[in-house]
C-alpha cells in the first residue's frame, strides 16, 4: 500500500505572493509615455526668411503674465480653439482670413486646403503649463477640423479611420505650427 503523502500547507502562499505583488507595485511605473508630439525645425545657420502673406498667419503670443494675444486681440484660453478654427476654416472665404488652395488628395478628390499657419511666440517667463495649454488648444482646433472633414467624407471620426485615410485627412487639414524665437520681458525666477 502506498504511503499517503503529507499535504503541503498553502496558507503561506498568499503571503509570499502578496510580497511579490507589493514589490512589483513599488518598483514599476504604469506607462505614462504620452503627451503632445512636436517636430522642431531643422538647425540652419542662416535665417531662412519665408514670405508668408499676412492674412495666412495666426499670431498667438503669450506674455510673461500668461496672457494670450491672438492676432492682436486679448483672448482667454477657453476661446483660443474656436478662434483658431475660425481662422483655419475660413468658411465664408473672408479676404482677411487665409487663402485656400485646391489640391488633389487621393480618396478625397479636390479639396480646398487652407494655407493658414499658426505662429506661436512665448516669453521666456511664460509658464510651461500655459505653453502646453496653448499648444493643446491649437492642436484641438486642428483635431476638431479633421474630425469634421472625416465625418463629411468618410462618415467616421478621424481616430476611427484607417491609416491611409488618416493620411489623406492630414493632408487636407495640415497642422502648421511655427514657433518664433522667445521674447524676454519678464524676470527670471
Amino acid at each position, binding site marked *: 500500500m502506498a504511503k499517503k503523502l503529507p499535504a503541503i500547507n*498553502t*496558507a503561506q*502562499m*498568499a503571503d509570499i*505572493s*502578496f510580497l*511579490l*505583488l507589493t514589490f*512589483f*507595485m513599488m*518598483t*514599476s*511605473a*504604469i*506607462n*505614462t*509615455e*504620452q*503627451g*503632445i*508630439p*512636436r*517636430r*522642431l*525645425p*531643422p*538647425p540652419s545657420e542662416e535665417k531662412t526668411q519665408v514670405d508668408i502673406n499676412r492674412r495666412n498667419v495666426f499670431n498667438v503670443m503669450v506674455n510673461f503674465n*500668461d496672457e494670450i494675444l491672438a492676432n492682436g486681440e486679448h483672448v*482667454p*484660453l*477657453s476661446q483660443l480653439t474656436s478662434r483658431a478654427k475660425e481662422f483655419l476654416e475660413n468658411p465664408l472665404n473672408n479676404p482677411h482670413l487665409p487663402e485656400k488652395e485646391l489640391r488633389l488628395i487621393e480618396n478625397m478628390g479636390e479639396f480646398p486646403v487652407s494655407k493658414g499657419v499658426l505662429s506661436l511666440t*512665448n*516669453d*521666456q*517667463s*511664460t*509658464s*510651461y*503649463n*500655459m*505653453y*502646453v*495649454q496653448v*499648444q*493643446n488648444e491649437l*492642436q*484641438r482646433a486642428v*483635431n476638431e477640423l479633421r474630425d469634421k472633414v472625416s465625418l463629411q467624407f468618410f462618415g467616421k471620426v478621424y481616430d476611427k479611420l484607417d491609416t491611409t485615410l488618416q493620411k489623406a485627412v492630414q493632408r487636407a487639414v495640415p497642422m502648421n505650427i511655427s514657433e518664433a524665437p*522667445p521674447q524676454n520681458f*519678464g524676470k*527670471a*525666477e
Partner: protein
Amino acid sequence: MARFKKDKKRELAAMGTGSMADIVFMFLFFFMVISNMRETDVRVKLTMPSATEIQKLEKKSLVATIYIGIPKSPNENTLPPGRVSVQLNDQTVKQENLVGDVRDFIAVEKESRNEEDKNRLTFSIKADRDIQMRYINLIKGELRANNALKINYATTKRERGEYAGGKY
C-alpha cells in the same frame, strides 16, 4: 417569534483562504503586464501639465526622457538662479556642462539604437508645469542644434472641459 431566534451554539464557518493565493497571483500578473520597470531614479520633483489632445508614444524603447523640475535635494546641480534642475540619465547637470552634456546624451541615445530606430527616436520633455519657459527653450535649442528634432511634451490626460490648472 421563537421561530426566528438564533441558534447560539452555531459557530462561524471558517473562511477558505486557499484561493486567496490565486487571486493575488492574478493581481501580480496584471501589474507585471501593464507596468514597466522604473529604470532611472528621478531626482527632481515635477507635476506634469495636463492636456486633452494627447497621443501615446509608440514604443517605450524609442523614447529618451529629459526631466526638468525642482531638485529633490539641495545637493543637486541647478541652473541659475538655482531653483530648477535638468536631469539627463541619472544625474542633474551643471550649468557650465549643459551644452556638452546634452550633446553627449543625444549622441549616446542615438548610438544605442539601430539605424532604422534612430530616426524614430523621440526626446520626451518631462517638465514641471510651474517652471518658466526659459529652461524649456534652452533644452529645445540644444536638441535642435544637435538635430534631435522629434520631441514630445509629456503630459497627463485630462478630459475636455476640465480645469487646466494655472490662471485660466
